């Protein structure tokens, strides 16, 4: 056994007491701070559930067609959505989709500025990269419990846990995309007297957009990967069906709901990827990267 060099008990007690103190004294403030997130999630969920099923199908199939200009993906999307409807998973699927969309939107709002900041400073990158590693590798239950303690069980901790898990790839890919813009183009832009804002908005972000979109694709996928865990703390949706299936040993319920998650993943993965490809083609990077 490794010799006991220090006594870790006081440290652990300090952390536990600290968390309890935060929960007791700041719990309400934290909840109030996260209220806009809850509103966002609720608004999206209400909208998706209130929209008739055929309209949602029409919109998603339409988006799929816009992304590919081809009949294949729209058919895949249509069949996937029919599967969700016929398996009686529609409402749960909408709840899960709402969580995923809310998490993705929040992740975009946070990650892109952080990615921009990282791409400009080596120091910032050196500080943030290990934080991202931590966010992706730390078992979600480790931060799920304190979040539940602070915010109480329900949709907010579920959303926050999903964001923590899903945001890092977008930060990384934004940083990568911005840094890998052709230096010759950046220099030309500088030679014409652009200021940093003009270079960022006019050159860097448009040219990094395919990479950023790949990051958004990753974020949606990782958000879907979190739905079962998120449903443990009250997110509901397809994850909750899986959980119930496991709890009641109803294999079929777990299987169908699980397939429902896969179907959602396929829809959003293919759509975001196709948009990425379309964008690459427009910028002329398709040949260079294939």
């Amino acid at each position: 056994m490794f010799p006991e060099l220090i006594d870790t008990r006081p440290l652990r007690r300090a952390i536990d007491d600290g968390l309890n103190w935060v929960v007791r004294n700041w719990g309400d403030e934290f909840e109030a701070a996260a209220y806009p997130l809850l509103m966002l999630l609720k608004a999206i969920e209400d909208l998706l559930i209130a929209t008739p099923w055929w309209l949602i199908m029409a919109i998603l199939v339409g988006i799929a067609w816009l992304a590919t200009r081809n009949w294949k993906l729209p058919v895949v999307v249509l069949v996937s959505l029919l599967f969700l409807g016929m398996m009686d998973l529609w409402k749960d699927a909408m709840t899960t989709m709402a969580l995923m969309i809310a998490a993705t939107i929040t992740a975009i709002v946070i990650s892109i500025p952080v990615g921009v900041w990282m791409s400009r400073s080596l120091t910032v990158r050196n500080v943030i990269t290990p934080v991202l590693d931590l966010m992706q590798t730390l078992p979600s239950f480790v931060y799920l419990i304190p979040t539940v303690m602070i915010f109480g069980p329900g949709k907010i901790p579920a959303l926050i846990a999903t964001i923590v898990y899903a945001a890092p790839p977008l930060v990384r890919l934004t940083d990568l995309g911005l840094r890998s813009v052709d230096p010759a183009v950046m220099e030309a832009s500088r030679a014409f007297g652009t200021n940093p804002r003009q270079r960022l908005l006019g050159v860097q972000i448009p040219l990094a957009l395919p990479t950023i979109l790949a990051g958004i694709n990753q974020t949606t996928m990782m958000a879907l990967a979190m739905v079962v865990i998120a449903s443990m703390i009250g997110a509901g949706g397809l994850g909750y069906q899986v959980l119930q299936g496991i709890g009641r040993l109803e294999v079929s319920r777990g299987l169908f709901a699980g397939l429902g998650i896969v179907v959602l993943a396929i829809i959003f993965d293919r759509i975001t990827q196709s948009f990425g490809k379309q964008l690459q083609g427009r910028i002329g990077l398709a040949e260079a990267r294939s």
Partner: protein
Amino acid sequence: MNAIDIQADTRSDLAIAMRGVTKIFGEKPQEALALLQSGRSKAEVQAETNHVVGLDNVSLDIARGQIFVVMGLSGSGKSTLIRHVNRLIEPTAGEIVVNGTDVLKMSLDELRIYRRTQVAMVFQKFGLLPHRSVIDNVAYGLEVRGVGRQERLTEAAKWIETVGLAGYEQSQPRQLSGGQQQRVGLARALALDTDIILMDEAFSALDPLIRSGMQDQLIDLQKSLGKTILFITHDFDEALKIGDRIAVLKDGAVQQEGKPEDIVLRPANEHIEEFVREVNKARAIHVRSIMEKGEHELCEQAVSKDARCEDVLPLFAEHQWVGVVDESGHQIGRVTAKQVIKALARYTPGVG
């Protein structure tokens, strides 16, 4: 006080004046600079301090309205030199005065305005924005300057036509050939209507025939627009063809600066002599620079004063003397085959 005024005056008729510009790449350039100024060579400085000398005490005077070519092999510092003019690279020491203003004293904001309004640049790798159409690329500089959309598109369309790309306005850069892309790059620089255009190996990436066409077009444009063009190249033939004056750069230092003929007829050292040996001298040397000046009896055959040696060679089959006339047809001198042969013969120090 007076001396300074005079100095400032003589510089104001220069487009670009560089004085003792030195650039050292590395962590502690000042230490390496001290070594360099104490008389060590570029190689010694690099061995001792691990700093690379990009430019070594470069002084150039570039008068308005000429094509000034800086010629050098790769690693000679020519691309570093041109980037000092618009301060894409900051010098370690020296002074750079453009249109009478000290570029190095500008604040960041002043520098941006200076880049937007006084110097435009054309790049070897084109540097076009791949996500914008040709016309939006050409209008880019004006957009950065804050010109309204309608006005800048009209202006851009005009320059696209000038460089011979009419009809390609809405194309994407990647759909164009290398030569066409560089025409876009040239139009983008011309659209800014700056007095000075910097061209960094602008034609080096192009096929020989297209390159030759672009050179002719550049000479024509310069004649009609009267811009000051600082042109960088590694190609001596190109330098001789388009340059009003040429500076030869090696190891970051200017080896020789002068008119093309000066360099061809009187190479300053062995390094330049090596270049001269490879060029087609008959094409490089103007007859006016070797002719016998003054009033002579009228010759039966005459050539213009812009003629090169290769133009008069066929005439010697029939004639002993060939006259040289100015624009108005007035004979200003004459040449004989002997003079031409002497000019074309290999330069040997101590002979002739």
